[in-house]
């Protein structure tokens, strides 16, 4: 089944979509991220792992302009995102983000949540947007809930709607910030399935998560961050079976029971 609006891409394509160079971020006097360097290719799925408080969510938020960086550069579509005159409103239409707490708009129905962006921001044709929205909803199995309010949905359903809402903007990259962390265990799978489907269709994704088996199955590369620095970048099978750094080994041990 196809994802409407997501181009199918050959993953061996090496076109660099997003580049992070020497990124430094501080909160007041505390350094939260130090010297982050990463190139993300089109169609790649990057999974960021690391202990709590290591800065992985912050890094994601920097990519979306929700946090400002003090030093370094973020280059997207050959344009630097660090200047003060960056039009984030425009950029955010190409970089979609899904949050841990879904953050659907409670006063709008599911379908209204989804079409708000495309119609009001992208000024697209209403009929076309509606068609895409319904097809996306159908893909995640929630077409019958399109007129429901968020409070009538379960956590897993809300998160799937949140993903559809971001997808309907036709972004080039999708950022996922611990999107299953607030869910009851039995609902985690349905969301991960959606994300895996997206990955298979070639969406460029940067995922922050604690779901190790998901990371192992879906990631093209694992980026391990500890205390604000990138410790290790490796392909999944290498990272999980043979981590090169001590801190990565220490981290992975915590998940062995």
């Amino acid at each position, binding site marked *: 089944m196809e994802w409407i609006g997501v181009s199918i891409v050959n993953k061996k394509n090496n076109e660099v979509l997003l580049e992070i160079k020497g990124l430094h971020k501080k909160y007041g006097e505390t350094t939260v991220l130090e010297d982050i360097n990463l190139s993300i290719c089109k169609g790649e799925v990057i999974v960021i792992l690391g202990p709590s408080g290591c800065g992985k969510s912050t890094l994601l938020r920097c990519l979306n302009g929700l946090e400002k960086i003090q030093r370094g550069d973020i280059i997207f579509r050959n344009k630097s995102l660090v200047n003060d005159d960056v039009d984030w*409103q425009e950029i955010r239409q190409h970089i979609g983000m899904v949050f841990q707490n879904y*953050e*659907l*708009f*409670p006063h709008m129905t599911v379908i209204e949540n989804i079409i*708000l962006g495309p119609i009001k*921001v992208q000024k697209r044709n209403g009929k076309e947007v509606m068609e895409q929205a319904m097809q996306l909803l159908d893909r995640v199995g929630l077409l019958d809930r399109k007129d429901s309010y*968020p409070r009538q949905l379960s956590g897993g359903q809300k998160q799937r709607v949140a993903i559809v809402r971001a997808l309907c903007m036709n972004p080039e990259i999708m950022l996922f910030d611990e999107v299953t962390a607030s869910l009851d265990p039995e609902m985690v799978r349905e969301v991960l399935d959606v994300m895996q489907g997206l990955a298979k269709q070639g969406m460029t994704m940067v995922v922050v998560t604690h779901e190790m088996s998901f990371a192992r199955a879906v990631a093209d590369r694992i980026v391990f961050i500890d205390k604000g620095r990138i410790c290790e970048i490796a392909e999944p099978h290498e990272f999980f079976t043979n981590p090169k750094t001590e801190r990565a080994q220490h981290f992975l041990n915590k998940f062995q029971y």
Partner: protein
Amino acid sequence: MNLNWQFIIDSLPLYQEAAWITLKLGFWAILISSIIGFICSIILYFEVKGLKSIVKIYIELSRNTPLLIQLFFLYFGLTKLGITLSENTCAIIGLSFLGGSYMAEAFRSGLESVSRSQIESGLSIGLSKAQLVSYVVLPQAFSVSMPSVAANCIFLLKETSIVGAIAVVDLMNVTKDLIGMYYQTFESLLMLVAAYLIIILPLSMLLTWLERRVRYAEFGN
């Protein structure tokens, strides 16, 4: 207790007229207060430099002083400085001055109740600041502030009982005059209490119902 029912029936027109004035004053006070309150809350929410302090001072001054004194000051005090206002206008100005700060507090708490994450969520789908405010913040703020706004409306209607002090021909003055002229004390007081019951009780119930509907429809998550 034997009530003089004839007197009650004869006085009905007077009370009716006075009740209308009370409602009229209340209506204008609520309307103008809401406008003032809304503007003030926006100023406080967006922290508009310069205006923010003025609004804060206004709110503290009007919330910490009694309406009666505000009315006396407006009606008697300003007259001596050459500004003459009719008693009804004074009443509306005084009530709006007081009501505006109460509405400002209600709207402000509604605006602030919309969480930062909701705003970030709106930003992430590319909404501009203006779009954020109209599509995400205001609808939720409205729903949250409804109970307080409703309470303020009832409050303002009750405060209209005070404007009789500056000669507005309202329910209080009609009652006082009738007692003074005819000594039908119980009948007059009975009608007074009944008048306020009739005005305020239905409104109170209507607003409770309305508030419940608005919260139900708009709240989720």
